[in-house]
C-alpha cells in the first residue's frame, strides 16, 4: 500500500501534476487507514466482549447447566426453562411473522394501487421498524393478554415479538422483490401466467434467499429482547417445562405448550447479573454463551436454506 507513494529521488524536480497525484494518493491512503481503524475499533470491542464472556462462562458451561432449572444455589442452577422458553417463543414468532410479513411485503410491492393511502401505510411500516420494543410490549399487554385473553403465555410472547419482527420482514421482502428484474415478470406473463402464479411460482422463490436474511436480522433482534416480555408477564423463576408438543396418546400432538408460562434466556441472564453472589455472574456469562450459540444456530440455518434455495434456482 505504501509503495506507491514512496517519494521519488530528490534529484529530479517533480512536475505539478506528479505532485498533485502524490498528494491525492496520500489522501486516499489516509482514508483507507481511517477505515481500517474504525473497523478494528468495532471488531476489537466485539471480540473483547465475546472473549470475556467465554473466559468467564465457559468453565460453567456443561450438560448439567443446560439440563437444570433455575435454582437459588448458583452451583445447581441451569438454563433449561429459559432455553426451552426462548426456543418456543422464537418458533411462534417465526411461524407468525414470516408468513404475515412476506404476505404484507408482497402485497405492498406487487398488488397495491399507488395512492395516498398506500403511501401512508408505507411510511408507517418503515417507521414501525424503529419503534422501541417496550411500546410493542404495552400494545401486546392490552391486545393479546387482556383483549384476546391469551394470558402470560408463550403464545402471547411469540406474537408480541412477531409484531417487533414484522416490519423488518416486510421491508426485507419488498426490497428483495423489487430487486428482481421486471423482464422476469413480463416473461412470466408472456407465457400466460396469472398474477398469483407469477408472484408465487417465480417472484417469491427468487426473492426468498434475501427475504431470509431480513427474517434472521429480525429474529436475532427478537431473541435478545426482555422489555416487552417482562411487560406481558414473563417469569423469572420457573422450574418446570411446558407440556410436550408430542404426546404418547391420541391425538399425539398437543398445543398446550402455547398456553404455558415461561421465561427466556435474556431475562434469566439479567436476573443472574443483578445478584450479589459472584458465582451467579459466571452463570450469567454461561447463559450468554448459550444465547449467542442459539443466535448463531438460527443464522446458520438461514444461510443453509438460502444456499439450498439459490442452488435450485435456474434462470
Amino acid at each position, binding site marked *: 500500500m505504501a509503495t506507491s507513494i514512496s517519494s521519488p529521488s530528490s534529484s529530479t524536480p517533480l512536475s505539478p501534476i506528479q505532485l498533485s497525484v502524490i498528494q491525492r494518493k496520500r489522501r486516499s491512503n489516509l482514508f483507507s487507514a481511517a477505515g481500517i481503524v474504525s473497523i478494528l475499533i468495532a471488531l476489537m470491542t466485539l471480540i473483547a466482549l465475546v472473549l470475556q464472556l467465554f473466559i468467564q462462562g465457559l468453565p460453567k458451561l456443561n450438560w448439567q447447566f443446560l439440563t437444570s432449572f433455575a435454582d437459588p444455589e448458583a452451583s445447581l442452577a441451569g438454563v433449561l426453562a429459559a432455553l426451552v422458553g426462548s426456543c418456543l417463543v422464537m418458533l411462534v414468532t417465526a411461524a407468525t411473522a414470516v408468513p404475515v410479513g412476506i404476505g404484507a411485503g408482497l402485497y405492498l410491492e406487487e398488488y397495491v394501487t399507488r395512492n395516498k393511502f398506500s403511501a401512508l401505510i408505507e411510511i408507517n411500516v418503515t417507521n414501525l421498524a424503529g419503534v422501541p420494543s417496550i411500546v410493542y410490549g404495552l400494545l401486546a399487554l392490552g391486545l393479546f393478554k387482556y383483549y384476546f385473553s*391469551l*394470558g402470560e403465555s408463550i403464545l402471547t410472547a411469540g406474537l408480541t415479538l412477531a409484531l417487533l419482527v414484522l416490519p423488518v420482514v416486510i421491508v426485507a421482502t419488498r426490497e428483495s422483490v423489487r430487486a428482481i428484474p421486471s423482464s422476469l415478470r413480463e416473461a412470466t406473463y408472456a407465457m400466460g401466467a396469472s398474477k398469483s402464479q407469477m408472484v408465487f411460482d417465480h417472484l417469491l422463490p427468487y426473492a426468498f434467499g434475501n427475504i431470509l436474511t431480513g427474517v434472521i436480522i429480525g429474529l436475532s433482534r427478537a431473541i435478545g429482547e426482555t422489555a416487552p416480555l417482562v411487560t406481558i408477564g414473563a417469569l423469572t423463576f420457573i422450574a418446570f417445562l411446558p407440556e410436550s408438543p408430542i404426546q404418547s396418546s391420541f391425538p399425539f400432538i398437543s398445543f398446550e405448550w402455547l398456553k404455558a408460562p415461561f421465561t427466556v434466556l435474556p431475562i434469566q441472564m439479567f436476573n443472574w447479573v443483578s445478584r450479589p453472589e459472584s458465582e451467579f455472574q459466571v452463570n450469567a456469562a454461561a447463559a450468554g454463551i448459550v444465547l449467542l450459540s442459539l443466535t448463531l444456530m438460527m443464522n446458520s440455518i438461514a444461510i443453509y436454506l438460502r444456499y439450498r434455495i439459490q442452488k435450485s434456482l435456474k434462470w
Partner: protein
Amino acid sequence: MASKIFNRSSLMFSAIASIVAVSGLAPTAQAQIKADGSSTVFPLTERAASDFQKSSGKKVTVGVSGTGGGFKKFCKGETDISNASRPILEKELKACRDAGVKFIEIPIAMDALTIVVNPSNPVSDISTGDLKKIWDTGSNIKKWNEANSSFPDLPIKLFGPGADSGTFDYFTEAINGKAKQSRTDFTGSEDDNVLVQGVSRDKNAMGYFGFAYYQKNQGRLKALSVNGVAPSLQNVTNGTYRPLSRPLFVYVNAEKLKNNGDLRTFLDVYLNGATEINNKVGYLPLPVYIYNVGKKHLSEGKTGTRFGGKEPTNLKIADLANMQPKD
C-alpha cells in the same frame, strides 16, 4: 420448489391462526402458585418456591415486575402472592378494594439500607444530618469535609440506585424527608452490582444499597455506622439501626388462600423456614414471634394492611406485631 414454499408457509399461517382461535377459548391454568413483585424480595420467595417444588412437586412460579407492577397484577387477582419491598400504598389499596381483592399482609424480612465507602476511607460513622447534606436536592457538596469538617479533604463521588428502585424511594424518604427527593448528579444504576463495583474501585466513593449486597461483598466495601449504629442483624432487630431499616413483605390473596390448599401449605413452609431462608439469601430475618403473627393471620384469615396506605419510615419491629391490619 416454488409452490412448495408457498404451501408450506400458508399451512403454517393457518395452523397458527387456528391455534390462536382455539387457545383464546381456554383459560390458562398451569402453575399452581403464582408469585410476582419486588426484585428485592424475589430471592426469598424464589428460595422458598424452589425448596417447596423440590419437596412437593407442586408448581410455583415467581416473576419480577417490581413492587408496584406486582401489586397491579395482584389487585386484578392474577397472582396469589405479591412480593413487596414496602407496604401497599393508598392507590394500590383502592385498586384492590375496587376489584374485591382482599389480602393478608405478612412481614417476611428486614432490610438495612447500608451506606458503604471504599475500605481505604478513614470515615466510619456518619449522621443522618450529614447524609441529608450530601444527598438532598440542591446539594453541591463536592468534598467529604464540606459535609463534616472531621471528614477527609478529598473529593466525594456518589453512587446510588436508579429512580425506579424501591430502595431509592425509601432512602430519599428516610433521609431527605420526601420520596424521590434527591440530588441527581450521582452515578445511578438499577443493578446494585454496578454500585458495588463503583464503590470498591474508587477510594473517594460513597454509595447505598440493600444489606445483602454489602454482606456478600464485605471484603471490598466498608459499611458506615449511621448515627453511631452499625448495620447488623442485632441492631436492626433491636430497632436501633434507624431510620434506614425497612421491613419486606409478602401479600397473599385471601380468597385464593381459602380455595387453594397448596398455597396454604406453601406459605406454612415459607414462614416456618423464613429464618433459614433469610440467612441463606443474606437478608436479616425477623424475630420468630413476628413470623408466628403472620401464621396466625393466615389461619384466622385476618385481612388488610397495618399502615393504611402510607410508607412508614421509623418503624420498630415490635410494631409489626402490635399494629392491627385493617381493610
